[in-house]
């Protein structure tokens, strides 16, 4: 290795060490200042120890989120200073048009005013209407992302609950099954998305396996990746393969934590399997399910790698995270990208709040009862 190679590592390493020292110095100063101001030792120590996070929080969260909000009201392409445009970005995104269709055969572009493109077409008998938007990619991508979340989150939870219940049946070699089922989740998602693209490709494994069925049914092998109606399936399969095992291991730990006495008590009351599942397992497992629901909903709305490796047909849109990334770093529309990112942030907050709101109705915390 010559210095040319090290030349890219060493400066970063030097700055890494410098930042480390810098943080230590700041912590020391913060501690001394607090003590000088008469703060008790315990409180001063605690605040000092969380300093690294607090500084990071202020820089990487508070400052960047604030800047992002500001940028969402500007037009900015990196070359000229950000130009304040008020709500223009948002009103462009929310500029939707609904146009009636005179006949089911009429093209959407003929029905919609110029510069508006089709987002969703609804045909009712011999007519119907079409929804168009100026930022049609955003709405198509929002539709795809939500559809993906609505499909993968419940399917993933049901599948992983099934596997967890299975593994909880006093099976032999439990450790082996756990390790095996968890494996897809630790594989690099880059590797697995490429693998699934290969499996779903026109002459890939899937069509190879199903070739006899296609022949029997007399249909051509579908092109999963380019057919707008089928492409979502590829992503759903990729996602489920990646998470069902991982989530089931988490749920299994929850199942193992259910006190055996509860089942014994249910047995004495003459409860059958279903009643035990319904009245003991589900309520006791609800905190784990809740954790699963929250994390998988947030993750489902932020698909990135998969969209980077599979070109999705335009008419379907793409995943929001990838769309925003493209808008910002390929088209250099920093303002518009920030506006979209903010809509996404609010969407995630709203959905999470909804899940949390609903939790009081179905999540059962054992400790909460004891506390009363």
């Amino acid at each position, binding site marked *: 290795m010559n210095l040319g*190679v090290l030349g*890219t*590592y060493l*400066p*970063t*390493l030097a700055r*890494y060490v410098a930042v*480390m020292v810098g943080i230590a110095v700041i912590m020391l100063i913060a501690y001394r200042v607090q003590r000088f101001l008469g703060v008790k030792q315990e409180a001063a*120590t*605690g605040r*000092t*120890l*969380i300093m*690294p*996070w607090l500084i*990071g*929080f202020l*820089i*990487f*969260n508070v400052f960047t989120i604030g*800047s992002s909000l500001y940028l969402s009201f500007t037009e900015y392409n990196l070359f000229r200073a950000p130009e304040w445009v008020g709500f223009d970005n948002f009103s462009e995104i929310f500029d939707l048009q609904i146009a009636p269709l005179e006949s089911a055969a009429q093209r959407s572009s003929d029905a919609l005013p110029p510069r508006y493109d089709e987002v969703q077409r609804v045909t009712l008998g011999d007519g119907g209407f079409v929804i168009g938007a100026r930022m049609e990619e955003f709405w198509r991508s929002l539709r795809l992302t939500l559809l993906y979340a609505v499909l993968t989150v419940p399917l993933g939870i049901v599948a992983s609950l099934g596997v967890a219940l*299975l*593994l909880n*049946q*006093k*099976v*032999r070699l439990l450790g082996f099954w756990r*390790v*095996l*089922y*968890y*494996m897809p989740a*630790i*594989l*690099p998602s*880059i*590797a*697995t998305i*490429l*693998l699934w693209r*290969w*499996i779903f490709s026109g002459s890939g494994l899937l069509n*190879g396996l199903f070739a006899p069925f296609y022949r029997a049914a007399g249909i051509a092998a579908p092109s999963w990746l380019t057919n707008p109606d089928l492409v979502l399936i590829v992503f759903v399969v990729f996602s489920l393969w990646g998470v069902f095992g*991982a989530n089931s*291991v988490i749920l299994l730990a*929850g199942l193992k934590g259910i006190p055996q006495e509860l089942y014994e008590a249910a047995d004495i009351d003459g409860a059958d399997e279903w009643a035990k599942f319904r009245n003991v397992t589900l309520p006791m497992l609800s905190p*784990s399910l809740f*954790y699963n629901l929250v994390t998988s909903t947030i993750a489902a*709305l*932020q698909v990135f790698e998969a969209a980077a*490796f599979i070109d999705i047909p335009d008419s379907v849109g793409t995943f929001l*995270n990838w769309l925003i*990334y493209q808008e*910002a*770093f390929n088209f250099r529309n920093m303002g518009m990208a*920030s506006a979209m*990112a903010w809509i*996404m*942030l609010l969407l995630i907050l709203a959905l*999470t709040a909804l899940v949390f709101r609903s939790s009081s109705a179905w999540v059962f915390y054992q400790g909460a009862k004891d506390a009363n």
Partner: protein
Amino acid sequence: MTTATARQRDSLIEQPQPSQRRFQIRRIIIYALLLLGAAIVLIPFLWMISTSLKTEDQLFTRQIQLIPNPAVPMNYVRVWEQLQSINPNMTFWRILGNTLFITLLAMFGEILSASIVAYGFSRFNFRGRNLLFALMLATVMIPGIVTRVPGFLVWRQLGLLDTYDPLTWPSLFAWGPLYVFLLRQFFLSIPREIEEAAIMDGANVIQIYVYIMIPLIKPILLAIGVLAFQANWNNFQGPLLYLSTPEKFPLAVALRFFDQSLSKEAPQWHYMMAMATMMALPILIIYFLAQKQFLEGINVGAVKG
């Protein structure tokens, strides 16, 4: 253990009772389902390895070949020759070095800072502690893309685009709230008496942390180390955004570079799967070696969360 005794008992009884037959059928169904699950996990994975050992002609055969004949391990070398044909500096060692450099620095920063912050959150009372901790957990919900644009602009202003800085030293600011959360749970489970004895002996916070707490939290530190290694090794979004010179790429972005430049028109799946396997291999080895810590680390968060 209970299964073993149950089976022994079963074999002692000659005539299976109806309820026992039901029990046996149930067992068979359970294991059949478990095997089905194993097939779902393993077949795609084996297909990746199988493809990585095929020649280009073998890729699109009509008959499905799980075991390639002949097998060509040379794909693992040739894929790098292919990459070097576009950029002579993109050697295997360079790309591996990049990946390790980013991964290890970020991992070390995460473990160091998260354990210190978690110690502060779990052991010391101060006003605003719970509020700050809740704030920290809430940041999990913020999609990375919101902070990406301003973040990019800041690194650009600092002149640190196309360096490893954005991917490494910000980890020193405890950027992974999940790790802090896991460590805090662990700290809370350690009895306070242990420290109190040390305080009586006149030890200060740094001494207590280094000599008493670190040895006690070693298992969870190892678990977090494994989780952090995996997350940083697999990281794609950060390097994709901040690095632009191909020879600075880590594996994940190099794989995309290969996909986009060499494989766009006619995908060279044997090479791509070879690269994907190479990327997965270290993670798999660590996973199998440290599976106990790994699964524990995940479960601490899930059950107590």
